[in-house]
């Protein structure tokens, strides 16, 4: 069953590139049906995890340390649901939004390739396989950033591609050293071998390489330079995909899987993670406040919110991990929604500069209301989902006796609120700009997807109800808390 995640998405990508040239409707239908199927499958995987806790799928019938295996545990199921929910809603949004670009089938084909890559990264239990899927997703995203082939987009894409290739090289070098040290590529087996051989300086060097490589992929602050260029330049649905899930799956997920489950987390690594998180949180939000380009502002906020996630997971306590993962889910929802809103504004007014907007609330009620919900959610106002996750993060900081970090988190939240007040004031409230008299609300598929996102924002806090948490968040937290026991559950099962 697990292989279906990869089969469906890859199959859809190739089918679209084969037949999509002729009819646009075919592309729309294939992409939406396949992402919907993936979403249903990922929901199903939650129940599977509840029942069996860990499922190991042997590709080609080869037993794990020899062959490649796919592993589904709580953490993977959590990430799968996040990824496939967001990609399904974005596929709906793209039906109308991508009309303004030519070659829609190429877009869908690359989009499905990216989804396939990310599904593969989440599911795989083999470290080189992880690298291959990571490259599939990143190469597709380089191409998608340049999709508009305008000057800025090409420039951003080139920058993104060069930095991305450097990070992939670091990761590949790390994998090579790891293979030389442990003579195996299966992640569970690597973990066992390291536990037997003991900690050595090779592992330290590999950790540094992985930290740099995956740090670049997840745009933590010293490595963030590509993100504010790449995310705004892409088409809005791709910006939502990049900010919403790509940096989390390629960056955070792989980082956590490797550091928590394979190497076994140490105090030093946790300190580094919290420090990186705190720096990203503050730097991202400070840079965001001064921006006038709507999408660029949102891109800087992605850096800052990723900082929250890493800071919270870096605390290492169960509550901290819970807060971090919940914020990861929430961030992918509201940041995708904000990018879709910015896409809707751009679609209607052909403009991203906040200074030239104003009073859009009269003309575009759906866009402005959903963006209001998302803004409140990202700045942590109750009762939206962002509030609950930030509350848990701050509580976790206090519980771990790190008052300074809690203080940083609160400051970040206040500054986020300030910058989103600015967005609301200049873009949606106030008097209608005279040049914008003729704009209309966006088409139906875009509205539908934004409304669903907003509804999830509104009711996301309900996921903390104990009964629902047992299904969604608790298994994921357990996987990270149990650490290197991952090896025994994979190889034993």
């Amino acid at each position: 069953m697990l292989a279906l995640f990869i089969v469906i998405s890859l199959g859809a990508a190739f089918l679209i590139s084969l037949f999509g040239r002729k009819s646009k409707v075919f592309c729309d239908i294939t992409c939406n049906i396949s992402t919907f199927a993936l979403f249903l499958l990922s929901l199903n995987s939650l129940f599977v995890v509840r029942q069996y806790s860990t499922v190991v799928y042997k590709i080609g019938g080869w037993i794990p340390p020899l062959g490649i295996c796919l592993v589904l545990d709580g953490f993977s199921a959590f990430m799968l649901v996040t990824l496939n929910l967001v990609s399904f809603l974005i596929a709906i949004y793209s039906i109308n939004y991508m009309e303004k670009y030519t070659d829609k089938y190429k877009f869908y084909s690359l989009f499905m390739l990216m989804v396939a890559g990310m599904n593969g990264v989440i599911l795989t239990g083999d470290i080189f396989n992880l690298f291959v899927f990571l490259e599939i997703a990143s190469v597709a995203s380089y191409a998608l950033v340049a999709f508009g082939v305008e000057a800025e987009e090409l420039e951003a894409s080139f920058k993104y591609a060069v930095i991305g290739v450097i990070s992939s090289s670091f990761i590949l070098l790390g994998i090579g050293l790891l293979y030389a040290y442990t003579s195996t590529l299966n992640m569970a087996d690597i973990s066992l071998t390291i536990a037997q051989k003991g900690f050595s300086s090779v592992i330290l060097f590999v950790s540094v390489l992985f930290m740099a490589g995956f740090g670049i992929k997840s745009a933590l602050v010293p490595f963030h330079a590509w993100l504010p260029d790449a995310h705004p330049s892409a088409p809005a649905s791709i910006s939502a995909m990049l900010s919403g899930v790509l940096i989390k799956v390629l960056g955070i997920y792989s980082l956590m899987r490797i550091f928590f489950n394979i190497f076994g987390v140490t105090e030093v690594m946790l300190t580094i993670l919290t420090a990186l998180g705190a720096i990203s949180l503050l730097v991202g939000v400070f840079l965001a406040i001064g921006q006038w380009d709507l999408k660029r502002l949102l891109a800087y906020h992605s850096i800052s919110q990723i900082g929250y996630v890493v800071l919270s997971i870096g605390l290492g306590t169960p509550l901290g991990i819970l807060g971090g993962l919940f914020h990861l889910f929430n961030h992918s929802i509201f940041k995708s929604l904000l990018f879709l809103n910015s896409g809707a504004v751009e679609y209607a007014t052909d403009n991203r500069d906040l200074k030239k907007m104003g009073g859009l609330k009269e003309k575009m009620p759906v866009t402005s209301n959903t963006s209001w919900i998302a803004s409140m959610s990202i700045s942590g106002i109750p009762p939206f989902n962002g509030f609950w996750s930030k509350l848990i993060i701050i509580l976790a900081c206090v519980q771990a006796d790190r008052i300074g970090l809690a203080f940083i988190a609160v400051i970040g939240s206040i500054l986020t609120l300030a910058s989103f007040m600015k967005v609301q004031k200049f873009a949606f409230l106030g008097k209608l700009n005279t040049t914008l008299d003729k704009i209309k609300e966006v088409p139906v598929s875009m509205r539908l997807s934004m409304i669903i996102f907003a509804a999830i924002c509104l009711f996301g806090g309900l996921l903390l109800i104990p009964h629902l948490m047992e299904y969604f968040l608790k298994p994921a937290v357990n996987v990270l808390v149990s650490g290197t026991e991952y090896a025994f559950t994979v190889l034993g099962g």
Partner: protein
Amino acid sequence: MSVYFLCLVLFSIGLYCVLRKRNIIKIIIGIAIMEYAINLFFILIAYRWQGRAPIMAQGREILGMVDPIPQALILTSIVIGLSVLALLVGIALRIFDKYNTFDITKIKRLKG
């Protein structure tokens, strides 16, 4: 041991080329050098003293072979490198269309 070190030197040369050079084409060449350094490193990991190529042939025993897994991995990473390189060259050509230069200090419309 020194061969591994030389690999790292080659990798550093590529990294230096990517970070320091201003011409887009030279940056792409730097990326290629980095990839080759890593590929070389993998092959060297696999090598054992006086090993022979890991090919199964009729009537020969499986003895004294070098490790075949890194070689298989390298084939994959070469394919990935090829696709990335092709994409980068394509983007570079398009950039030349728009800006009429390969100098990255002159290609900076994105700021902030």
